[in-house]
């Protein structure tokens, strides 16, 4: 038991929890004492949502080893379903925090359902089909939501597709208004909620990775044929990782939707999916702490001090991405990095002693 607790991996995870908690407390103090500009305060919740999205995508890309190019699609599902629920239940559930929790749960569940539907045919196949299908999924969701009309009147929710005339009764309220999306959202999500969801996602990911299911998922990533040969059900574990990842992205979407005045389908497009992927790749595949740091830095910088360069953001990310891949895949550069990292030196010396 003691050995399990003291393992290096577990210690690393607790450091990550610690970093997140310390950052939360610091930022909370800064913002409540008025030492933080209001522009920066407005970025806190969106930053949290991008961190959650990056963590969830890292579960798919880094831990499971499958490429998803439509993660914003799951955020979109979460955002629109979550915000719709929070607005539709405004009279029934008066407490704002309860409506927010409800929105996050509904967003996560519906995104998980979408992930299940997308994953079940694709994850049975060998090869990079998930990338192709999720790419299409992101675009499909965008088009569907652009043409979706949802309203509420005394008889309940009314749905319409392509046709804005959904026959709302007296006193009816339009919630999702096609290409205009949802407007007039009450900002329900708080920084504390964002922090709690980040912690929850971290706990789920870390505990899953260090358990039987997580090992099965990583076994599939490292060597699918060997994993099958030791009796691991490929579809079950691939689907498990992907659905959990989609659910987290849905929660991030709901949180994001409730932090904005308006959300439109175009917000969750291919560029957003790639942006999240850049966070994951630059933070390091399978490295959750890296994802958190990359998402924070790369989201805050272009929105604040580097605002004048924000038009070149995607161009710059592409260049950084290519350079990162070239550098980390060159043996010479890797051996130099290995030589500089203290824990790698220690591990090598330990191995030399025994061989």
């Amino acid at each position, binding site marked *: *038991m003691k*050995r*399990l607790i003291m393992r*290096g991996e577990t210690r690393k995870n607790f450091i990550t929890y610690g970093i997140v908690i310390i950052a939360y407390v610091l930022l909370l103090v800064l913002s409540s004492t008025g030492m933080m500009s209001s522009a920066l305060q407005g970025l806190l919740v969106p930053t949290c949502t991008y961190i959650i999205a990056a963590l969830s995508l890292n579960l798919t890309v880094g831990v499971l080893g499958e490429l998803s190019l439509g993660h914003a699609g799951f955020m979109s599902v979460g955002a629109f379903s979550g915000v719709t629920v929070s607005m539709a239940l405004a009279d029934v559930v008066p407490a704002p925090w309860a409506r927010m929790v409800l929105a996050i749960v509904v967003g996560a569940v519906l995104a998980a359902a979408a992930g299940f539907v997308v994953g079940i045919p694709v994850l049975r196949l060998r090869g990079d089909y998930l990338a192709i299908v999720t790419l299409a999924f992101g675009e499909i969701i965008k088009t569907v939501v652009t043409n979706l009309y949802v309203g509420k009147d005394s008889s309940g929710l009314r749905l319409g597709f392509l046709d804005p005339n959904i026959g709302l009764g007296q006193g009816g309220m339009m919630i999702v208004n096609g290409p205009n999306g949802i407007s007039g959202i009450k900002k329900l999500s708080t920084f504390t909620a964002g922090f709690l969801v980040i912690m929850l996602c971290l*706990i*789920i990911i870390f*505990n*899953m990775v*260090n*358990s*039987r*299911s*997580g*090992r*099965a998922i*990583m*076994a599939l*990533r*490292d*060597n699918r*044929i*060997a*994993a*099958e*040969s*030791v*009796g*691991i*059900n*490929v579809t079950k574990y691939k689907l*498990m990782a992907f659905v959990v990842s989609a659910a987290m992205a849905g929660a991030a979407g709901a949180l994001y939707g409730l932090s904005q005045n308006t959300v439109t389908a175009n917000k969750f497009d291919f560029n957003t999916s790639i942006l999240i992927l850049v966070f994951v790749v630059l933070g390091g595949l399978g490295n959750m702490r890296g994802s958190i740091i990359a998402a924070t830095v790369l989201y805050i910088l272009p929105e604040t001090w580097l605002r004048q360069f924000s038009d070149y953001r995607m161009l710059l990310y592409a260049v950084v991405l290519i350079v990162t891949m070239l550098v980390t895949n060159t043996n010479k550069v890797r051996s130099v990095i290995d030589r500089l990292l203290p824990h790698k030196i220690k*591990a090598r010396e*330990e*191995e030399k002693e*025994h*061989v």
Partner: protein
Amino acid sequence: MSEFHFEKGKMVPVPSHSIIPERDLGKPPVLECNHLGIDFGGLRAVDDFNFTIGKTEIAGLIGPNGAGKTTVFNLLTKVYAPTRGTILLNGMDTSGKTTAQINKMGIARTFQNIRLFSNLSVEDNVKIGLHNAYKYSALEGVLRLPSYWKKEKAAHERAIELLSIFKMEYMADWQAGNLPYGAQRRLEIVRALATNPCLLLLDEPAAGMNPAETAELMENIVKIRDMFQIAVLLIEHDMKLVMGICEGICVLNFGQVIAKGTAEDIRQNPTVIEAYLGKRGADPC
């Protein structure tokens, strides 16, 4: 190099035109292949493969490169679905099963080109082999319920116990991909044993090993067979190993069985000598 002496069982014929050790008579054979075959397009990669392995037999599958030996392994583990014939495992038909189900039924294997989970630790590799031995749900794992701690502790102890067969327990925390070549091959065997098989398939276990390592491997294969009371089927090019420990041997050439029998039978079989061991009269050892 230390000489290794191994007492082989007396081989007796069984109705399926194969031989099994006398001690395994009366128990159902662990594996029985009947007219097994697979075609890749027009190529008959394996054809009419009949072979029976006794409950605790160490059997060998030999043949020149491209004879179809690894294809037989892939057929047995359902990486390929056979075109013809049946495979009976402990008397049970394996048709329609997936690779993972075959493993649960009792066949574990190693690979010619090593397939470890190279980014994970040595212990985790073995624990993945124990996937179906210590079961708990994903929810129990995420919530860290008492059953998680109990099963993880048991799996850890079992993993160390299995690693100690090859005296590898001190490597438990090393990354599997960084192990020396021989240790990687041994880890693959440990991982296969962790799945609690009744038949262990070893694909060229001695490839790349020096004579001393090979001799140690021979001892270990026999030790594993005696410890776990399982059958072993191995593909190997090292004739010293095959002739030294294999009780029943099957020789493949161009997908056809050209000879079956004990080491002595194979050594003297003119077809085998011609097809595989070189010119007539050469000493295979």
